[in-house]
């Protein structure tokens, strides 16, 4: 409903809004955020939060860039970036599972470290990527869809499938809903927690690869500030910060809604800071509406009507 309303309002304001090309603009703009929002959904559902995703994007991108500059083959560079992502996930898992540090604190810490390392790699300078085949990964289209959008769709499909149809997904929900109940039921809470952090690192690194290939160069500050935007999209989509509730469908709606608003403001010629203002209003408004409607987040509230159709199908 919210999306339709904004859509109609935007068509009245700008005739460009309802053109196919513009929809691709929206999709392209949210693609990289979308990859990480997809994996942040199980993260929040498991009762954890990963604020190091954006720094992981930057660090893995710089890693790939540095390897390419050494004239290493493209697959090696990508592998290197993904290994860095998995390493970030592993380290976050160690801190949260073994040392029982709250995930928010743990990942703020590792975010600083990863961002620092990303700057150290090339003394704070960005890296121009010489390999054309790497750059091709993030530019142009496949099957008429911009490549980054294609990767995002795959990420949403894979994670959505796992969350909805598999045992692992059921266990992630259970761990977030009640760690004690999950433990007593024989579910390994440490394994599930570690698993979501590894996935988070992996997909963040993937987003870092897509980001750098799209840009043709790697920046140490790549992805900076996106972590909050990503979590905002997941929360607007109805996933509970307290764990146990949420869905990939909701996150897709959240990502698209935030993308549409940004795009609309663009079309109206309003400068970027207004996007931040509207994003903030939407986040607070969405959560407050959910609370007022007598429900905590997830499944109900602003998106009740929207999701009723999609989830029962």
């Amino acid at each position: 409903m919210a999306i339709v309303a904004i859509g109609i309002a935007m068509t009245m304001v700008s005739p460009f809004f309802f053109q196919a090309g513009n929809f691709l603009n929206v999709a392209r703009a949210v693609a990289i955020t979308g990859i990480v929002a997809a994996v942040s959904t199980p993260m929040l559902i498991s009762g954890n939060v990963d604020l190091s995703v954006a720094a992981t994007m930057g660090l893995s991108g710089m890693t790939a860039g540095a390897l390419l500059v050494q004239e290493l083959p493209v697959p090696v560079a990508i592998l290197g970036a993904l290994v860095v992502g998995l390493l970030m996930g592993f380290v976050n898992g160690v801190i949260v599972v073994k040392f029982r540090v709250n995930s928010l604190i743990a990942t703020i810490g590792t975010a600083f470290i990863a961002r620092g390392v990303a700057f150290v790699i090339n003394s704070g300078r960005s890296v121009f990527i010489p390999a054309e085949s790497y750059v091709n990964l993030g530019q142009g289209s496949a099957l008429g869809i911009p490549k980054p959008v294609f990767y995002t769709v795959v990420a949403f499909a894979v994670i959505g499938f796992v969350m909805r149809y598999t045992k692992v997904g059921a266990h992630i929900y259970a761990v977030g809903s009640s760690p004690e109940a999950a433990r007593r039921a024989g579910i390994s809470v440490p394994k599930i927690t570690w698993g979501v952090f590894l996935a988070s690192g992996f997909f963040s690194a993937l987003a870092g690869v897509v980001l750098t290939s799209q840009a043709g160069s790697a920046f140490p500050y790549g992805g900076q500030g996106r972590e909050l935007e990503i979590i905002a999209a997941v929360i607007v989509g109805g996933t509970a910060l307290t764990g146990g509730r949420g869905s990939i469908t909701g996150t897709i709606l959240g990502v698209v809604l935030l993308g549409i608003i940004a795009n609309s403001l663009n079309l109206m010629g309003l400068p970027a800071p207004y996007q931040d203002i509207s994003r903030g209003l939407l986040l607070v408004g969405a959560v407050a509406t959910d609370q007022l409607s007598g429900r905590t987040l997830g499944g109900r509230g602003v998106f009740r009507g929207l999701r009723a159709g999609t989830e029962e199908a």
Partner: protein
Amino acid sequence: MSVEKGRVVIEGIGLSKSYGPITALDNVDIEIRAGEITALVGDNGAGKSTLIKILAGAVTPDAGEVRVNGETVVLRTPADARDLGIETIFQDLALAPDRDVVTNLFLGREVLRKGLAGKIGMLDRGEMEAQALTQIDALGVNIPRSTGVSIGEMSGGQQQSVAVARGAFWAKTGMFMDEPTAALGVRESSRVLQLARQIAGSGVAVVLISHILPHVMELADRVVVLRHGQKVAELTEDISMDRLVTLIVGVDAHEAAT
């Protein structure tokens, strides 16, 4: 599945457990029989919960052994006990509040699809729903039959009914209930206790820990009284309030009053 009533299915022999200088359980023998409700009573700290936890694999005893169906077993974790068909229902609900009845009934023991889909971990939701509804109907418990309603939206009694239904679903040998009615109202309590009776009727050995002596007298076929970590009595008849109180506190209640 159903064994003849009265056969000993779970045995504890010479069970002892100390926590530092405190002796929680001191050389206790216990026999738990199929089809019966065995009540464990005793004052706080008498060792009831420790005993149950040893038999359920949640606590390892310092000495003694546990036998299930006549065979000595080593229960390292609650999962070991569950594999032998022994389920425990806790007073604080061990359910995931955001999930529905079906998901909770199969929590940690999900049914997977056959073939390749199962190999990649795909759930057989249809099969789980069918089995869950059969179980709910068989027990006649008053919980919403519609799937998709999260447990957290149900009343305390309904939630505990789900926990009991889950226990009953998986309990082939024994079902331990530690203060199952502690958080419930009168009507809800009686419903849960009725369920305990029904489950014992199906041939499962039920063990009930309760402070509420009228419940114990009404339900139990056998009452085991613990005091200071020792077994002081095992009653099968003439179970009166006076007698129980006397055994629990260790003095004659009438004498104490006069």
